[in-house]
């Protein structure tokens, strides 16, 4: 019975995930799509106006109504002629400088160039004057053309309005229906919650709980009976000497390893307590847990922006077949995700590196890109494996600010392993010290600093001295 409930719950959460993804897509797609349509319309109108001006330029001149855009167009034509003759004069001067030409000849050439320029300008003016300068008919033609353009522009504007309205309505409808189904799903989930045995496994304020977790590799116990809670919204630091089992513990939480004993409970996006032991490694990110790695694990064949889009992999609602056909929906989704990636890149001040490939970028930037990638998936809990490893002092200072900023803007909990005691003591709300897989102490940074066991683990016991 309990097993069936579990499966039902997992499925419900999966469906909710999908609904949430769709909702986010529609909400973000609307402004992007609107901006795109508007810019397209502006371009079209611009092109039409330009075509009309070019066609009616002579009428504009004849009628004496040469102002605004037609005037600039006329001016640019004159400028073009002037420019070409100016260049000729420059070339002549250059030849004089190189002494390829005697001075007398040069004067002659200059004169002929000026003559030609005059001629060309006159010719341009003549085109409009030679034919009968019938001012009235020109005015008429202009008026007609402008009217035509005006009606066309109006039509385009109108169609755009209709399209936007339609888009608006469709999106609103979809959002409303999605929200309704979200509500019903959430309600059923909540009713399941009441009978759920897991619900009491985790305190209301906690997001993660480890309960007697052990990890054994053959004869070696890398993690030995660890239990602690991570509170929601805090920065939790895990410290310990080399080989204490910190990374192993991270791998247990993110299901890269299966803990040999113990339970890991976690509160997900929908306020549901789940046991992470039931989940596969690639499903963890769907629940809102995302991690970085000790050695930067970026995709070196993709640009920084595309690396971020890999982080958004779970946000895509389209399947393989629409990827094959490059459907409209996929293109819209790509736009939405790209916009999100750009926002995150500018948030972390990575915008200049957007189109670069990770190979050859400074290590500090790579670490930041990895951090940016984790933010793409709306994480609830970010697990950082030695974020300051390999950074210099200045970069570490910056990292402190960044981590705090991420926690505050994205409302996440951060769980980190770090060797840099300065960083841990400065930013962590709670610190847990472990050694040889066993818990030494847990508490505020000050408490840990004063703890005797921790000092012994790091500096050696009195007997060693």
């Amino acid at each position, binding site marked *: 019975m309990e097993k069936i409930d579990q499966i039902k719950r997992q499925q419900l959460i999966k469906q909710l995930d999908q609904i949430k993804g769709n909702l986010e897509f529609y909400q973000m797609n609307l402004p992007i799509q609107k901006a795109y349509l508007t810019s397209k319309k502006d371009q079209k109108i*611009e*092109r039409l*106006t*330009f075509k009309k001006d070019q066609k009616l330029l002579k009428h504009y001149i004849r009628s004496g109504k040469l102002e605004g*855009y037609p005037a*600039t*167009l006329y001016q*640019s034509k004159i400028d073009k002629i002037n420019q070409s003759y100016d*260049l000729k004069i*420059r*070339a002549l*001067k*250059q030849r004089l*400088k190189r002494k390829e030409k005697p001075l007398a000849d040069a004067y002659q050439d200059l004169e002929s160039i000026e003559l030609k320029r005059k001629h060309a300008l006159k010719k341009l003016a003549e085109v409009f004057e030679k034919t009968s300068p019938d001012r009235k008919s020109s005015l008429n033609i202009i008026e007609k053309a402008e009217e035509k353009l005006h009606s066309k522009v109006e039509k385009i504007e109108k169609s755009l309005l209709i399209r936007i309205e339609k888009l608006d309505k469709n999106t609103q409808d979809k959002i409303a229906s999605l929200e309704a189904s979200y509500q019903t799903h959430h309600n059923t989930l909540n009713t399941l919650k009441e009978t759920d045995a897991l619900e009491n496994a985790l305190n209301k304020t906690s997001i993660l709980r480890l309960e007697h977790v052990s990890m054994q590799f053959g004869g070696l116990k890398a993690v030995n009976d660890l239990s602690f809670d991570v509170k929601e919204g805090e920065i939790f630091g895990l410290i310990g000497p080399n080989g204490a089992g910190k990374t192993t513990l991270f791998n247990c939480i*993110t299901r*890269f390893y299966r803990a040999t004993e113990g339970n890991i409970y976690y509160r997900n996006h929908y306020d549901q307590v789940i046991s992470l032991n039931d989940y*596969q*490694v*690639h*499903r*963890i*990110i*769907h629940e809102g847990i*995302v*991690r970085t*790695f000790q050695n930067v*694990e*970026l*995709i*070196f*064949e*993709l640009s920084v922006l*595309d690396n971020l*889009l*890999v*982080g958004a*992999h*779970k946000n*895509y609602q*389209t399947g*393989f077949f629409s*990827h*094959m*056909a*490059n459907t409209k929906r*996929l293109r819209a989704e*790509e736009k939405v995700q790209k916009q999100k990636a750009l926002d995150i890149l500018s948030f972390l001040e990575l915008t200049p590196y957007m189109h670069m490939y990770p190979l050859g970028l400074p290590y500090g930037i790579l670490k930041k890109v990895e951090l940016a*990638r984790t933010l793409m*998936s709306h994480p609830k809990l970010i697990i950082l494996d030695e974020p300051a490893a390999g950074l210099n002092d200045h970069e570490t200072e910056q990292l402190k600010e960044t981590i705090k900023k991420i926690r505050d803007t994205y409302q996440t909990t951060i769980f980190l392993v770090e060797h840099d005691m300065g960083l841990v003591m400065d930013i962590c709300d709670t610190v847990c010290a472990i050694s040889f897989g066993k818990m030494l102490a847990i508490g505020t940074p000050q408490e840990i600093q004063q703890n005797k066991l921790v000092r012994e683990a790091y500096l050696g016991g009195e007997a060693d001295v």
Partner: protein
Amino acid sequence: MDYQKHMELTPIKRFLGLTKHPYFGFVVIGLFLALGQVLGQFGVIGTSLVRSFGYTSIYMIVGLGFALLLGYAGLASLGTAGFVGLGTYIMGYLAKTHDLPLILVMMVGIIIAILVGLIVGFISLRIEGMYLAIVTLGLSEIFNEVFKNAYSITNGTNGLSIFGVGASREIAYYTAIGLLILMMIVTFNVMKSPTGRAMLAMKNSDSAAQAMGVSILKYRLLAFIFATVYAVIAGVLYINYAKFTIPTTWSLAYSLNILAAVIVGGSSTIFGIFLGTFLIFGLNLGILQQFEFFATNGAYSVIFNGALIIIVIMFYPGGLSKLVLTLSHKIKKAFKKYKEKWLAYKYGED
């Protein structure tokens, strides 16, 4: 309003803007290949050259699937020949006994290919790298032995011929070219899509991919299914065009040639695969076979392939497509530089 922009947008430039559409290149390749058949019909170029075009473009379909498998998912396979051979025998058998139309045969072929791809994909979950290549090689050899010995279906080592069945050679050629264009577009889409990115993530780092929500199982299966479906479709097109298939064609050498084509050309772009297949297969079929020496001593043409692979892997690990790209980049750069120099010489510096 930006007048300068509109004034510069001449009709020629508008057309050049169209050429920047990613599909434009594929259509041009397709039209170029179709032109070969047209010229052949008018007797401008020889029949053997036209045939080499036909075979090579069919092999390019195999290359496309293989590039996705090797270049994107990072899975090595030496079983390509077996899958292509499977396609030829499916078509051969069905066309001969039941006289099914091409489209139906292709459906059956795709279903069988998906099943085979699933099997190989599941195998690939347990083993990787060289070992996977050897397992697929073994699978291919099993297929080959079946082709040789299932006499009632495959006609054994004598080869299966379906002369007089199905479309004429010209129609078959154009069908192959049409499907090639379609496959190029589909492959391009997949490479640029989230699926392509997920596969690249899997190739670069298993753990990062999994942490980002990429299911290794799903994408490995997908990559293998993709490669086998392409191979089987190419096989169907091959027998539709050649009207004959024989087990010796689908040996290890063929798989290695496909591997060579993808590596020499570069697996990351469609253009690279085109370049690679036409170098490895086109050079042999179209040019070397015209000489009597190579026609009688077929093994010697392999030397060219070997030398090409050595050169490319030593000097241009990204493949010839990368070389072409960097070369064109350099030429453009040099051209710009010399133009600036010439302008400074002519008009003086500002």
